[in-house]
């Protein structure tokens, strides 16, 4: 049985979504714990989210 590539793309997008959600959640917790470091945390969060997002989009276009 052949599985269409769009299914794989969907799976990867789910994974990317979970990943970005976890990054966002952890960043929120970190900011709540240390509000004075929010600038640095935000930057790191955005970079990490962007890296995962890249994979998600690559999958989306491959699928």
């Amino acid at each position, binding site marked *: 049985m052949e599985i269409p590539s769009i299914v794989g793309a969907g799976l990867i997008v789910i994974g990317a979504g979970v990943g970005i959600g976890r990054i966002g959640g952890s960043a929120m917790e970190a900011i709540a714990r240390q509000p004075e470091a929010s600038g640095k945390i935000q*930057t790191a969060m955005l970079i990490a989210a962007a890296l995962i997002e890249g994979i998600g*989009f690559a999958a989306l276009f491959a699928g």
Partner: protein
Amino acid sequence: MRSKLTIRLITLLFFLMPFLSMAGGEKAAGTDLKSEIKAYIQHHLEDTYDFSLYSYTTDEGVHKYIGFPLPVILWDNGLRVFSSSKLHHGESVAQVDDAFYKLDHGKIYKTDADGTITYDESHHATNVKPLDFSITKNVFTIMMVAVLLLVVFSRMAKTYKSNSIPSGIGRILEPIVLYVRDDIAIPNIGKKHYKRYMSYLLTVFFFVWTINLLGLTPLGINVTNNIAVTFCLAILTYLITTFTAKKDYWMHIFWMPGVPKLMRLVLAPIELLGTFIKPFSLMIRLYANITAGHIVLMSLIGLMFIFKSWLGSSLSFMLAFALGILELLVAALQAYIFTMLSALYFGSAVEEHDHDHAH
């Protein structure tokens, strides 16, 4: 006084624009609406040979285009330059000297006098494709943005010669320039080397941001969702990283210090591949984000015409409005991410390690 008038004019223009493009949407009732919207979105994502704001079909079935043509430059046994109005949006054959050209699916092909285009099994045109150096809509927009940025920033720079307090547009742009310097360049590249990269980082930031923002106006511009454009931007980052890299950068790629000898052989190809993946991900990220945004936004606007009920249409309008505001954020965010990651890569290229300790 003059700048106030300009601002008012621009504001007026932007308020008028949505009505123009709305009028463009309500064309040709009766045909299959869904496939028409699909084709409309597809068409929007493509580069075109003329700058048309919108098109409509008259009651007599004649397609009318509102906009202006741009020059077509072809290399086909000699340079051939003609106006894109000759192509008539693919509806007729353009004769240039002794050669004939026709537009098919957004590409120019060489044809005979009747404009016959032959296709192979996979429905690709088999006609000869001349080398194309045309000033297309994207090229035109890039040129306009380049001129705009040059004028704005050189004027801004001039005001600092006499007075260190910013005036005019500098009052808005100075904090952004400082932000790029203090929050993007210095933390990632380091105080010692950041000055060399500032010109590129600022250029790329403002260029991508301006172009992304222009893509959200109903002018129908979409430059950053052309993968060739993001490819060139990523290549620039790659070249700058490669050619300004210090000894330590290459050492960390080919002979990673602090790792067992055998591991170094395994790591070298992976690290080398990584240098290509970095700019590749830059290219895909910008391209995919903006393309996805445009597709979703246009689909939501298209839904208004499918629902045809005041409830459904107003709902999709509100969704489109909310998404439009989100896209404003994405436009700035993608410019920021591109600049930030470029700075990060430059930083890794000039980083000087202290090799007394293993890491």
